């Protein structure tokens, strides 16, 4: 295997050599209120996820629950860069993205509880939060299955002559799915404005990156002559600075890219994961101690004078209260009825005045 230690990848944008991420233009642009807003959103995600976990343990939530705890800077950082023609799609660890694009906590918690007031009317569950009016296209359960969809969002933007980019998120485990490679090829061949974002938390369920993937993840883009980049994503400034470069290239030049954001999750793959077989507790504690994205940003903003201890406390209390209120809302909401099971299947069945087809759409 030829050594490429000295070979600088031609297509990469080297953001590490740039000035500290805090001073990147995209970050200098942030007002104090903007910064507090980013911080607040990360805290709200953290407290929502923790409240969801307690609800799951209290048997209010069924099925799967894939928590975003530890990865907050990725969703908040990326989504904070969205313009009106930018779109987001992700996999099943989707609550952080949902909160970052501005979806309400009530409708999300109600969805987890399977209630009719849920953002998907209780029909999707944890893995399937959607908000088309916020350019957020889910929430998908099959690993890598959402990536061709993300390429499609970019295709539509280009077809319609809109200046925008699609961010298609996946985990480190998804990069080996065939559909992902097909999507890479299409994006590169047709120069579609998509940024493929690999949220690399080091583990694909219980299998580490080194046990899953040959070669470096984002560097695979070179095989498709695509731009690529990578950064440590516990630092929201780095996330923004890195992603801004690639979003700019997508929007302005219709250039696709693969960006690897290195992050970490404190909890298991899902609540069903005992998290006792594949990584040492010390590793989790080390990350939590030195790279917690909320702590890192909090420290930075305290030093800047943007945050005070009092404000931090207030934000945290408000986030806990908001999550608790969401749980109360969910608890008090009704379930859908069996009559609702066959609604939202066909556009035509849901819009009977405009139905053109005849015959039976459903069977028994």
């Amino acid at each position, binding site marked *: 295997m030829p050594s490429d230690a000295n070979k600088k990848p031609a297509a990469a944008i080297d953001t590490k050599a740039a000035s500290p991420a805090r001073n990147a233009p995209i970050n200098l642009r942030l007002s104090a209120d903007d910064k507090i807003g980013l911080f607040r959103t990360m805290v709200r995600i953290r407290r929502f996820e923790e409240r969801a976990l307690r609800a799951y343990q209290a048997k209010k939530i069924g099925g799967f629950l894939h928590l975003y705890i530890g990865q907050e800077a990725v969703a908040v950082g990326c989504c904070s860069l969205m313009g009106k023609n930018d*779109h987001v*799609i992700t996999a099943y660890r989707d609550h952080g993205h949902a909160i970052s694009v501005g979806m309400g906590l009530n409708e999300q918690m109600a969805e987890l509880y399977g209630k009719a007031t*849920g*953002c*998907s*009317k*209780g*029909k*999707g569950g944890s893995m*399937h939060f*959607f*908000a*088309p009016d916020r350019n957020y*296209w*889910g*929430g*998908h*359960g*099959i690993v890598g*299955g*959402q*990536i*061709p*969809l*993300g*390429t*499609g*969002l970019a*295709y*539509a*933007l280009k*077809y*319609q002559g809109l200046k925008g980019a699609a961010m298609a998120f996946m985990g480190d485990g998804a990069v080996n799915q*065939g*559909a992902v490679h*097909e*999507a890479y*090829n*299409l994006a590169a*061949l047709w120069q579609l404005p998509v940024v493929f974002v690999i949220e690399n938390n080091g583990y694909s369920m219980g299998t580490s990156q080194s046990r899953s993937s040959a070669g470096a993840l984002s560097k695979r883009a070179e095989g498709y002559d695509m731009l690529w980049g990578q950064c440590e994503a516990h630092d929201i400034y780095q996330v923004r600075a890195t992603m801004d470069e690639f979003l700019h290239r997508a929007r302005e030049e219709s250039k696709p890219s693969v960006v690897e954001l290195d992050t970490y999750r404190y909890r298991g793959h899902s609540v069903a994961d005992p998290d006792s077989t594949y990584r040492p507790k010390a590793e989790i504690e080390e990350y939590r101690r030195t790279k917690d994205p909320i702590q890192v940003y909090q420290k930075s903003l305290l030093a800047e004078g943007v945050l005070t201890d009092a404000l931090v406390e207030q934000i945290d209390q408000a986030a806990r209260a908001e999550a608790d209120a969401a749980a109360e809302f969910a608890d008090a909401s009704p379930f859908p009825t069996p009559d609702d099971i*066959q*609604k*939202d*299947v*066909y*556009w*035509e069945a*849901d*819009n009977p005045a405009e139905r*053109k*087809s*005849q*015959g*039976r*759409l*459903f*069977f028994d």
Partner: protein
Amino acid sequence: MPVITYREAIRHALAEELERDANVVVLGEEVAQFNGAYKVTEGLLAKFGPKRIVDTPISEAGFIGMGVGASMLGIRPVMELMFWSFYSVAFDQILNNAANVRYMSGGLINCPIVIRGPANGGTNVGATHSHTPENVLANHPGVKVIVPATAYDAKGLLKSAIRDNDPVFFLENTILYGEKGEVPAEEYLIPLGQADVKRAGTDLTIVTYGRSVLHSLAAAELLQKEHDVSVEVVDLRTIRPLDIDTVLASVARTHRVLIVEEQKPFASVGSQLAYMIQREAFDELDGPIHRLATVDAPAIYSPPVETEQLPNPQRILKAALEAMQ
């Protein structure tokens, strides 16, 4: 009235809908420069250009998934599968994404895609290229499935399919591409979910669709001439939504049913039909429901033997006489 081929009828439907709606895009392998593996899209690239008629790499999961994603933002992709047999490499995109995204979002999204292409045996192309997956597709709530038998039906149904706001799967037949039929020059639509009695009769109802309709009509002629059996042939045209009422009305007239389908037997379209007919018209039946399907094995290559594996007029005649006993 003009007489055109089934292939031309599909091409005209595509051209008319491309003209009508700027969001319609035709994508697939060899659809543009090659003029289509089966020449269905011949001339469309010259007429509409490379933005509307798009050659894709061999990447069904990729380009179909891409089409589904684009449809969420208002594009109306008409994607060609060179053979419907290739659907299985894109199964997740077709039957997890296209079929389910509306439901999982609680009705916030719809995917107005069309996937079209030939689904048939009878051309000696072997086990992996001869699939007829209409039963597999129709098993999934959220999708619509059409199998037209004639040029007239193909054109009217494809136009309706492209205008439909749900995912529609359109299954053609390479052997039917050259079949000619009367097709009006003026625009017309055929609604999805409307069956068509192709031949009126009194003694036996043959329920069928696709190429088996033509075989059944040929068998019906022989049954009338040589056996004095009057056969009514009901062409489903659409599998889902299903026009079961037309089928049941026919059963009420003839009281005997033979289902003819180019399908492997287990969990075929006919299996579902038989359940529905006996459930809803039990008292109308003078005998059990019969069914002639493909002989239950992977598609054989050997040309003369493949003809005997599929429904054909002689096999249908024999099955009809059995159904009359």
